C-alpha cells in the first residue's frame, strides 16, 4: 500500500504573544503592523503530518491556507518544516475579514477531493477567532470520521487509533480512513525550520487559487455588530502576610469558619 496523502490546514494569525488592540471604530482588532505567525495548533498539525511522512506512513504532505497574500509566508514556513507543496486560496482583504469556518471547511473539503487526500489534519482552534469548528465541519462535509483534540495518533491497517483530550481525562477512539484529525497542544513539539530548509522551501511548488475555483461562495452569514474590550478589573491590593490574606478571605466568607 502506498503512503497516505495528507492535507494540513494552516492559518496566519496575530502572534500568540501579542497583546491585541481593539480598533477605535469597534469593528475589529488592529492587524496592520502587528506581528503575525502560524496558528500554534497548526504548527502542531504540520509537525504531525511530517512525522507521519518520516515514519513512511504518509507519502505526501500538502499545506493549505485561505487568506490574504501574506499567507504565502505561512505556507513557506510549513514547507520549510517539511511539507511537500502548498496551495494558497487567496482572499482579498474584505473576504479575509469575514470568512467563516464553514467557508474554509468547504474549500478544504474540495481540495481534499481533488488531491485524493486520505487524512486532513488541522489545529483544534485558531487563537484569533477561537471557534474550534473547521475540522469538524470539514469532516461533516466529506462524511469522514473526525478525531478532535488529538494527543496521540497511531496508524493501524485501514484505521487510526487516536487518543483524545476530553473533559474528564483521555479517551481513545478508532476512526476509519479517510479521516479528519484536529491537533491538541500535547500531540507533539513542532520543530524549528533550519536555514537550509527555509532556502529549499522557496523552491517548493505553491499554487495560488481563488475560492471561486472551488465553487465556494464566501458570502458571510454572520454580521459582526461590534468588537469591544472586555471589562477591566479594578486594581487590587497587595497584602503583607498570609494572615492578612486569610483574614480577607474569611471576611468575604470564602474560607469556611
Amino acid at each position, binding site marked *: 500500500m502506498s503512503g497516505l496523502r495528507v492535507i494540513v490546514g494552516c492559518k496566519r494569525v496575530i502572534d500568540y504573544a501579542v497583546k491585541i488592540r481593539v480598533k477605535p471604530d469597534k469593528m475589529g482588532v488592529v492587524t496592520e503592523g502587528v506581528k503575525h505567525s502560524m496558528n500554534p495548533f497548526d504548527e502542531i498539525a504540520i509537525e504531525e503530518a511530517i512525522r507521519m511522512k518520516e515514519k513512511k506512513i504518509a507519502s505526501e504532505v500538502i499545506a493549505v491556507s485561505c487568506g490574504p497574500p501574506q499567507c504565502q509566508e505561512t505556507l513557506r514556513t510549513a514547507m520549510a518544516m517539511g511539507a511537500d507543496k502548498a496551495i494558497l486560496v487567496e482572499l482579498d482583504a474584505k473576504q479575509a475579514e469575514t470568512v467563516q469556518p464553514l467557508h474554509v471547511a468547504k474549500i478544504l473539503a474540495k481540495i481534499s477531493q481533488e488531491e485524493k487526500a486520505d487524512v486532513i489534519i488541522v489545529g483544534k482552534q485558531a487563537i484569533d477567532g*477561537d471557534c474550534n469548528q473547521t475540522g469538524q465541519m470539514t469532516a461533516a462535509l466529506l462524511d469522514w470520521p473526525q*478525531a478532535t483534540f488529538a494527543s496521540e495518533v497511531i496508524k493501524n491497517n485501514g484505521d487510526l487509533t487516536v487518543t483524545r483530550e476530553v473533559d474528564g481525562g483521555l479517551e481513545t*477512539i478508532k476512526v476509519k480512513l479517510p479521516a479528519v484529525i484536529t491537533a491538541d497542544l500535547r500531540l507533539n513539539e513542532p520543530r524549528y525550520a533550519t536555514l537550509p530548509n527555509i532556502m529549499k522551501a522557496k523552491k517548493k511548488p505553491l499554487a495560488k487559487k481563488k475560492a471561486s475555483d472551488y465553487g465556494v461562495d464566501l458570502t458571510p*452569514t454572520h*454580521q*459582526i455588530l461590534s468588537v469591544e474590550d*472586555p471589562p477591566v478589573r479594578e486594581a487590587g491590593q497587595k497584602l503583607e502576610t*498570609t494572615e492578612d490574606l486569610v483574614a480577607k478571605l474569611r471576611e*468575604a466568607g470564602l474560607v469556611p469558619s
Partner: protein
Amino acid sequence: MLSRACLQGVRRGVHVFKRFNSTLVVVEHNNEKLTPITLHAITAATKLGGEVSCLVAGSQCAKVAEEVSKVAGVKKVLLADSDAFKGFLPEALTPLVLATQSQFKFTHILAGATALGKSLAPRVAAKLDVSAISDIIGIQSPDTFVRTIYAGNAIQTLKSNDSVKVITVRGTAFDAADADSGSAAQEEAPAATPSATSEFVSQELSKSDRPDLTSAKSVISGGRGMKNGENFKMLYDLADKMGAAVGASRAAVDAGFVPNDMQVGQTGKIVAPDLYIAVGISGAIQHLAGMKDSKIIVAINKDPEAPIFQVADYGLVADLFKVIPEMSALVDKK
C-alpha cells in the same frame, strides 16, 4: 382604531415570535447522571424565548431522561436509547440530531461548550449548511449573540442570518436551571442510522473526590512555580480544607506536574468561581482567558512584576512554599 391595529400587530408579532422559536438542547451525561453544564445550557435556551426540548442520547440512559424532565423550563424530552451511542461519538449523534431537526424544525440547537459539544455542534451545523456559533457568553436576541475572541481579550457581538442557529454555550456565563421544578413530557426521538466510521475504544478518566473544576465555588491553581508534581500535594491539602477544586496552568501541565484535564485557560477549561487562587502562576494571556471572570482573584507569586497581579484582587508577593502551608494551618484554625 389605529392603536388597536397596532396592538393586534404587536400581539401577532409576539405570537409569531413564540410560535417560531423552538430550541433543542443536546444533553450531556454519562448514562447515569446529567453533566452540570446542561443545566446552564437550558438557562441559555430559555432566554431565547421559545419552547425548549432536550435530546438525551445514550445507552441505557432512561434515568437521565427522567432527571432532565424535572428541569425547570424544559417542555419535552426526546430519548434515544441505543448501543450505537456508546462513547457519544459525533458520527453516531449527528444523524440523530439531524433526524430530530428534520421532524421538529427547531430554530436553535444548543449544547454546552465542552469537549463533546465542541465536537458535535460544528458537525451538525455543516450538515445543515449553517455556521456554528462557539462558546457564547451572552444572548441579546434570538439572532444576536456575544462571545469572546483572541483568548478573551476582545468581546464580539454577532448577528446570525442563518436559518438555524447552532450554538455552544459557555457554562460559566449562564446560571444553572432549577433541577427539580419542571415536568416535561417524554417521548422517543426519531430513528436515525448512525455512521459506522468511528468506534469508541476506551476512556481513562482522572478520579478525584474534589469538586468539579468548572463548577467549583473555589479553585486553587498551581503553575510552573510549583516546581514538581509532588508539591501539588500542598495545594490538594489546602483545597480539601477549603472545599476547592484544583487547577493548573499550561506550564504545569506541559512540565508533567498534573494531567491536562486540570488545565485552566484558552485551550483548557474556562472557570469563573467565587474565589480563584493562582499559586506560582505568572498570568500569561492564555491562562487569564480561562479565569479572569472569577469573582475574587488571589495571586501568590514571588515575582512582584508577574502580570497576574494586574488582575488579582489580593496579591501576596511571597514564596508559595512558605505561604501555602501557612494558609493551610490558618484555615484549620476555626
